[in-house]
């Protein structure tokens, strides 16, 4: 359950803000600071860029001139939650306790305790009451808006749409591969025209030859699919490592799950076998003499 101002929909549990141009950052000597320095977490990327380590003290300010700055001690370095929609932008961010953030960003004219927050996360005693709680809250607090987190599905919808998009691309790729596969099998079957002709002449029925072609097709398609899977498994780590390095993110780009592997096998093997049989069928309809003739 989360409640937030309608104009600022991004709920933040443990106040986070990006170090953009508004935020000046300066590492300072630990010895020069008071002992009750508030603690913060620093993103791995920021720590690497500025050479920060746990225990370091740093000054943060909300303006580029560094006025109204405050000193913080780095309590830890965290890996930001990977977000595909922010791919390419390096998350230079810090996380701090909400009172520290409010103290840092509060305007001089705003009395302490009257600042605004963007969102409040609420854990209900009974999660099943989320809908009722939201309705009650929305009726009583017109300036804010509550909604159950199970209904906050914008990002989930994004991924469902992306999955559909990938499925559509995969379908077109499979279609193109099938056409090429048919072209190849037509050529390969044609190459074996004489052999098939001889088999027909020595008395093997069409059905028997077709069965042989089918078994051969299944074997070749099965081996091909297995090889493809091994190739995918082998390249999975390489692709992930390359893109994680390229975009400085912990995002997993490729994951070969058993379900994905099974779908690949379920498509590739029957497709390969059927392509072989379809390509052979036209050939087998011809007479043995015609096939064996040079």
């Amino acid at each position, binding site marked *: 359950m989360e409640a937030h101002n309608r104009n600022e929909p991004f709920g933040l549990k443990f106040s986070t803000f990006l170090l953009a141009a*508004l935020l000046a950052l300066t590492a300072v000597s630990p010895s020069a600071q008071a002992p009750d320095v508030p603690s913060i977490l620093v993103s791995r990327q920021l720590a690497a860029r500025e050479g920060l380590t746990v225990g370091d003290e740093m000054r943060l300010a909300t303006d580029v001139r560094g006025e109204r700055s405050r000193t913080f001690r780095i309590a830890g370095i965290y890996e930001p939650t990977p977000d595909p929609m*922010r791919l390419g932008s390096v998350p230079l961010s810090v996380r701090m306790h909400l009172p520290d953030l409010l103290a840092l960003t509060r305007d001089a004219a705003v009395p302490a305790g009257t600042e605004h927050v963007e969102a409040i996360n609420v854990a209900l005693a009974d999660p099943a009451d989320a809908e009722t709680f939201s309705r009650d809250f929305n009726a009583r607090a017109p300036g804010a808006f509550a909604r159950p987190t199970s209904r906050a599905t914008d990002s989930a919808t994004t991924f469902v749409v992306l999955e559909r998009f990938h499925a559509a*691309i995969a379908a077109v790729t499979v279609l193109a591969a099938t*056409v090429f596969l048919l072209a190849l099998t*037509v050529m390969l079957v044609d190459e074996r025209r004489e052999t098939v002709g001889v088999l027909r002449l020595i008395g093997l029925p069409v059905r028997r030859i077709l069965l042989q072609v089918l078994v051969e097709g299944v074997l070749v398609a099965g081996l091909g699919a297995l090889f493809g899977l091994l190739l995918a498994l082998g390249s999975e780590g390489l692709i992930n490592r390359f893109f994680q390095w390229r975009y400085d993110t912990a995002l997993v780009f490729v994951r070969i799950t058993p379900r994905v592997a099974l779908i690949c096998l379920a498509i590739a093997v029957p497709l390969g076998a059927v392509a072989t049989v379809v390509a052979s069928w*036209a050939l087998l309809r011809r007479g043995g003499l015609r096939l064996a003739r040079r």
Partner: protein
Amino acid sequence: MSAPLAFAWRSLVRQPPRSTLGVLGVAAVGALLLDMLLLSEGLILSMRELLDRLGYDVRVTASDALPGMGAAIEGAPDAVAAIAALPAVRAVTPIRSEDAELAHRDRQVTSVLLGVGGTAPVWTILRGRDPENRRDLVINRYAAETLGVEPGATVTLRASCSHGPTAPPPVEFRVSGVAELPFDTPETASAAARLVDLEDACGAPGAGVADFLAVTSAGDAAAAAVAIGAARPDLRAFTNDQLIGRVQQTGFTYFRQISTVLATITMAFALLLITVLLTVSVNQRLGEVAALRALGFSQRRVVLDVLCESALIVGTGGVLSVPLGIALARWLDTILKRMPGIPEQMHFFVFEPQALLFHAGLLAATALLAAAYPMRIVARLPIAATLRNEVIS
């Protein structure tokens, strides 16, 4: 060149199933390649078109954040007056957006309420007219359908504002028109009124707050942005090009990356398969090629035959791939536009001649590279030994 081309054409026509399948395969792969090229820049082009269409070429904000995403401009009337006085500026429009509940009889809908200062509307009227009088507003088609209202109807508006009292009282507005608002997203209600009426609805008349200022330059957007920066150093001015650059850096990266990856894989896939097709085809015709060489065909000529065969397969498939790719792009665009928050007028796949030229170039390179290995086989073919083997077998 016409003789090798004619010869390659006859070679392909002689084996219709394999040639047809090869061409269809290239068409499918080419369509996918074209789509990936359109996707790589589609959102950016679409966004640029949308920004340009609004008629403003500079946006002024209070922070480095994108317009509407960061801090609001306090004292907007002063800023508008200061900027409008600059010679490089033709017009300035303050824009503010808040959330609002619109209700009509027993129906209600949550809407984005846009408050626009000045006289130039940022929407396109579909029915009715612009909001000219006090407490007039225009609503989008979705809001009109959800509320069941037409121009002339009265709706109750309860604003939820970031500035002013926490719970402003509900106020009545008259729907002056149904309009298409910029950046409208499907199945989302939106409404627009004059900025003064939005301030009224927020219970803070004369608040003088704007999310951003939309500026029309006198002709040179970059000069206007510089002049605004100099006149009001506390504000940030971005031209449309700068905004697009910022969006390019921070957003839409996923689609650019995926299009690059898929285009590369598609190219590699096409290259591999056409190479295999041509190689198998050439291997099956080694005797024929050796006979042609023995009859007096030069090495260059037989190599050209193979190259022309590749060019014909890829060229015909490439031509077919354009309409196929455009149809496929429309389908994929429909899928992707179901993503939340994507404005109706934005497209993921935008056709541009440059992409088509690049597509043709990539396919030409594929044809050339795919033919390289079979051309090598043909070029190095030992004529006598091949003919002898052919006779013995």
